[in-house]
């Protein structure tokens, strides 16, 4: 298997503060990888660095193409969908407009219409509410919408930033099931950043653990889940 995304020696900065201290990892095509870590470990920064939303140095390659120096919108146009923390919902627009925005870079009108229907099949609740302002949706529904919006890009790689944040456990499970399905059926490579380590490890096939801007552990999800330190620090038993 070839690596779809290759990150080497990634360092990121907020003003004078360095948030990442030389991160290296890679994602295989078709894999579902999770990035675990406590608050402030640098998970979100890693995702933001991939999309060039934060000042960073190091090498990031996507399907052999370097991403550094590309604007965020051009990174997205290469097929990298990013579901940001807080979901980034266009709250004043309708659910359907949110989905259309997800596909705004695509030129195949018919494909977009068909994909919107497909999203309504994946997420029936969005169909019920398709004319509503997105800001009126519940947190769980907005997260579904954010995932659906990202899928409208027909991405090759999807980055999710704490999709479980603030959601009820049942909703989280439903969402993660859908993510697994998208990964298997639509062959979308997924990188999910999570604090809910247990669920993320059940879902993922590979995992990285980061602490204070460095990768401290990596392996298959099963290995990581069985690791004594991880269990104590992140799984709580």
């Amino acid at each position: 298997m070839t690596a779809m995304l290759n990150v080497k020696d990634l360092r990121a900065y907020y003003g004078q503060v360095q948030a990442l201290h030389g991160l290296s990892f890679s994602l295989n095509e078709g894999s579902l990888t999770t990035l675990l870590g406590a608050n402030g470990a640098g998970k979100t920064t890693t995702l933001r660095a991939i999309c060039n939303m934060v000042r960073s140095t190091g090498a990031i390659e996507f399907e052999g193409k370097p991403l550094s120096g590309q604007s965020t919108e051009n990174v997205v146009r290469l097929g990298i969908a990013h579901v940001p923390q807080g979901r980034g919902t266009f709250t004043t627009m309708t659910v359907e407009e949110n989905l259309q925005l997800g596909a705004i870079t695509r030129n195949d009108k018919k494909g977009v219409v068909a994909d919107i229907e497909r999203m309504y099949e994946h997420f029936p609740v969005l169909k019920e509410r398709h004319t509503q302002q997105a800001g009126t949706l519940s947190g769980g529904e907005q997260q579904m919408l954010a995932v659906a919006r990202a899928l409208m890009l027909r991405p090759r790689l999807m980055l999710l930033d704490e999709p479980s944040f603030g959601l009820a456990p049942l909703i989280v499970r439903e969402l993660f099931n859908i993510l697994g399905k998208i990964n298997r059926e639509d062959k979308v490579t997924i990188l999910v950043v999570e604090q809910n380590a247990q669920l993320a490890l059940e879902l993922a096939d590979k995992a990285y653990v980061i602490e204070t801007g460095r990768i401290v552990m990596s392996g298959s999800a099963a290995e990581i889940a069985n690791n004594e330190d991880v269990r104590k620090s992140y799984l709580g038993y």
Partner: protein
Amino acid sequence: MELFINQVLAGIATGAIYACMALAVVMIYQAIDHLNFAQGEMAMFSTFIAWQLMQWGVPYWWAFLLTLAFSFAGGIAIERMLFKPLAKAPVLTNVAGFIALFAIVNSVAGLTWDFTIKQFPTPFGSSPFLGSQLISTHQAGMIGVTVGLLILLYLFFQFTRIGLAMRAAASLPESARLVGINTSWMIALGWGMASAIGAIAGILIAPVVFLEPNMMGGVLIYGFAAAVLGGLTSPLGAVVGGFLVGVFENLAGTYIPGVGNELKLPIALALIITVLVLKPAGLFGRPIVKRV
């Protein structure tokens, strides 16, 4: 009664112009969070371009369209050259930029076309509209063109892909970038459109206030009053505010003793202050909540 209806209709006619100016101001405010103090001067300059074209023998409607195209391109050029570099600069730097733009455009217009007032033609004539003494054909034309423009803008923003992208870029720039929208160009496009809308306002009001480099000063203040009244975050509010301010201005000038023509402008300023004190978000605007 006749006087009242007459004043209301005349108010709606000038209100249409304020609505256009307010809309232009709101479009730029939505995109970059700053008030374009030079909006009126840009509109004035566009109007001079139209006048110059007509002096050269270009028919009215061709001059109108060419001026819109020129203003659109000019708006984009101003954004690219002056305000894009200032995007991350502090508020006061931007304000200085707007004032500089104001002074430059005003002086260049004065230098090129001098400060004497000029007649500006109207394609609608100024006879009574439909035989009624209440409103002139030019006033009816002002209202008609503005309403047509508003409908076109509505359709553009609701039903075209680029309109959707512009709305997204204005409401949440970061999310817009994450779906692949080039937000920087959307801002430039907003400037171009605002500039063209201002040009329409200038061309329509020029037969009434006459053409000269300071013609838009008062108009822009009413436009600001309209935008503040309607809510700076709401294009619909800007339009409604424009018509309300137009009618209010006329009625106040007619019925409040001592106001007359001279004190109309302070009324607009008083309106701005009143709205900012009582309902800062305006009639239609969202209250702005910032996390600090």
